[in-house]
């Protein structure tokens, strides 16, 4: 069954017809060719597919594309403006908060959501809030450092 969708992705209006069972992550990767959103586990545990839906971090493998109808979606491709990294992206680079880069898009978007809810998050809060995002490379230490630095930069 085909359904029609109308939503905003990275500040651009998107209208599409999709199979009703299409997952949001597949819609983003396959229909929109935004391959920065990754699939690491298919089961909602690794967080590599995290995007912002109306500003909230959502694992895009856990909802259907049709559930995002009418919403405003930000993927990792939509963060940097005019080639300038978002403060959280810049902090990840500065703190070496990424290695292979596969979990990174989800980490950065989860981090932005985290900072929106906890602008002054301490290390324990950051670690607890990252429960839903797996990284196998960094040991998390530099991710935690990056999020603290990114939070400070976002506070301005």
């Amino acid at each position: 069954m085909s359904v029609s969708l109308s939503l905003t992705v990275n500040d651009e209006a998107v209208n599409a017809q999709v199979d009703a069972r299409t997952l949001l992550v597949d819609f983003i990767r396959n229909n929109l060719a935004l391959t920065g959103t990754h699939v690491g586990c298919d089961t909602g545990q690794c967080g590599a597919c995290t995007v912002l839906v109306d500003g909230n971090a959502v694992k895009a493998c856990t909802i259907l594309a049709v559930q995002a109808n009418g919403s405003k979606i930000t993927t990792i491709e939509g963060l940097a403006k005019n080639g300038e990294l978002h403060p959280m992206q810049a902090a990840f680079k500065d703190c070496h908060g990424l290695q292979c880069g596969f979990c990174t898009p989800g980490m950065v978007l989860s981090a932005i959501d985290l900072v929106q809810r906890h602008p002054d998050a301490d290390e324990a809060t950051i670690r607890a809030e990252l429960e839903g995002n797996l990284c196998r490379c960094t040991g998390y230490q530099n991710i935690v450092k990056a999020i603290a630095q990114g939070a400070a930069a976002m506070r301005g």
Partner: protein
Amino acid sequence: MGNSELNTVGQSVRRKEDYRFLTGCGQYTDDVNPPHHTHAYFLRSPHAHANIRRIDTAKAKAAPGVVAVYTGADLTGVNGLPCGWLITGTDGQPMKEPPHPVLAQGKVRYVGDGLAMVIAETPAQAKDAAELIDVDYDAVPAVVNPVEALKAGAPQIHDGAPGNKCYTWALGDKAAVDAAFAKAAHVTQLDIVNNRLIPNAIEPRAAVASYSRADDGYTLYVTSQNPHVERLLMTAFVLGLPETKVRVIAPDVGGGFGSKIYLYPEETAMVWASKRVNRPIKWTAERSESFLADAHGRDHVTHAELALDPDGKFLAMRVHTTAAMGAYLSTFASCIPTILYATLLAGQYTTPAIYCEVTAAFTNTAPVDAYRGAGRPEATYVVERLVHAAASEMGIAQDEIRRRNFIREFPYQTPVALLYDTGGYDACLDEAMRIADVQGFAARKAEAAKRGKLRGLGYAAYIEACGLAPSNIAGTLGARAGLYEVGQVRVNPTGGVTVFTGSHSHGQGHETTFSQVVASRLGIPIENVEIVHGDTGRIPFGMGTYGSRSLAVGGTAIIKALDKVVAKGKKIAAHLLEAAEADIEFKDGKFTVAGTDRSKAFGEVALAAYVPHNYPLDKLEPGLDETAFYDPTNFTFPAGTHICEVEIDPDTGKVAIVNFSACDDFGNIINPMIVEGQVHGGVVQGIGQALLEQCVYDQESGQLLTGSYMDYALPRADDVPSFKVTTKVTPCTHNPLGAKGCGEAGAIGAPAALMNAVHDALSAAGVTYLDMPATPHRVWSALQAAKH
């Protein structure tokens, strides 16, 4: 910018690759979508051990969207997957190498063993069609534990491997060891299980195979740590294709940790099938497939003994290990519990006599191969658990017993084949103790005790053999390949430099580190250097990245190529400057006539090489593009001390890491930020092994019980603390960078340090032995048992 500022070696230069990863511009295999591509799905065995009476694919072939269905019977002319290392047993016989079919031939041997490949227009259609394949299984008993597999009467997995034995192999002087034990003042014994792990790179394995009728050639995008090795094995050994007809590209790869070294069945079947269906084929593993069918790691059962004199000097070590191979021999499976394990049992110590015997067993599980550290974590765990236990039993302080036995004179020939070129073990131990504040531990322990908590401190003074490897030595030990590396330095006409390396980066940051090396050597900005890796179509050759070898071996190959570039540049500069070649010096990006201010910049020489109007064409070819193969003369020996402090809640059994400190000696360091990141990641994988992770198969059915992230406890951010990591330097003596390698150290040192801390904490409560992982349930149970 002054030229000295171009020398960034030793600086934490931010990574060149990060912009693309941070903006979603990475190109991973699953991001590759050739026009008109199809999708593959692999039907896998639900049984651990079964004969296949019949496979009926008729319904699947007729299902919507299906392009083709292939089973093992269709793969005529396709050989089994080879093993890259021949181990010769104590009986003088070669190891047993039963066939490793690309798709099952008459029998399945583990849950996840591939039976059929369905190719369809969409992934869902391929998966739906696979459910229509009718397989008539004759399930037979399975065995998943390597010790059980070797017992009389165990289910026989391969006709060609009686008793499920792959080999029994030994290293060391048994008679000398037995004699030393006979006169020992004290003997410490341990029975150790090194728990089976699943590597779990966050990017699942994936492949995209295409065939072109235009040149009868194939292109394979694949999640590989070593694309040239993948191509060599696939073409020469399995598919019988010319290497020239297969291009293997490993683009951005999302972590490997060993699991992406190997030639796997899936991509092999896809390359074969891409010509038959004449369309590109794509496959990306679901995470459940990763758990089932990626090569696993560790899985040793060991009895280890240490003989000591009255002063705590080590006299001898005797180790018997049973190692699981899984159902088939993966690419490097056979050398992990032998060459990369027994040779490390000297550790940092002068133990004069060591004997190790290893029996490798086939089991009804996924194949076992290298996982971060690969044999060396297992060896360090044996050595450092023995040392900890011996010190405790003899009442010697943990640092003191290590100091009494440290190697201090180099080069040092161990009794287990390795020649350590250099090291400084006291310095790392001292520094680790300082940053761990060992002096304050007694007070912290007493304070914790007041709160009813048990505190413990654990040491691991590890060593690893990296920089694999001198090909002639590896060859005598059974390697079926060389272990050199290749670097090509192409200076472009306008002075920019493109470096082609046989190493592969899947998180290690080679694009930055190698650029630092090249830019500093040539005196050019780091931005003018481009690093190309992971493509057999662009890079001359390569052995890939594993065993912490990339900088020590791959980096040295680049240095050797740079030397050739500079040597040729001197000839060109001599001509341009009308001076003798012997008088030309190259420094800070300039070719200078010694003792004068007459010079030519690197860029001017590069331009002259490509626009040879004023050029010694009678003596010198134009162009500036040099290639070097570098074969190391020895292994490198990174070493260090990790110290872990834990606090255990006896009511819950939960182990909290309150402090983890590491002082490592990786030789010279190019980029400290990247090195620290490697240590952090390795330590957390080591903590994962010690506290959280364990691959569990049901002993009866052979079903994988830890087949998802809900059942297999990968460390999460709140499972671990931040660490204190630092380094000491003794430069490697036999490569020009003085580099040793840093990728695996954390995973090698951490498990032993952590478990020694756990044992230290629990000793007062009467608990004497605990295997990894020290889960709350296991710790609590041990505490209860000790009360009774």
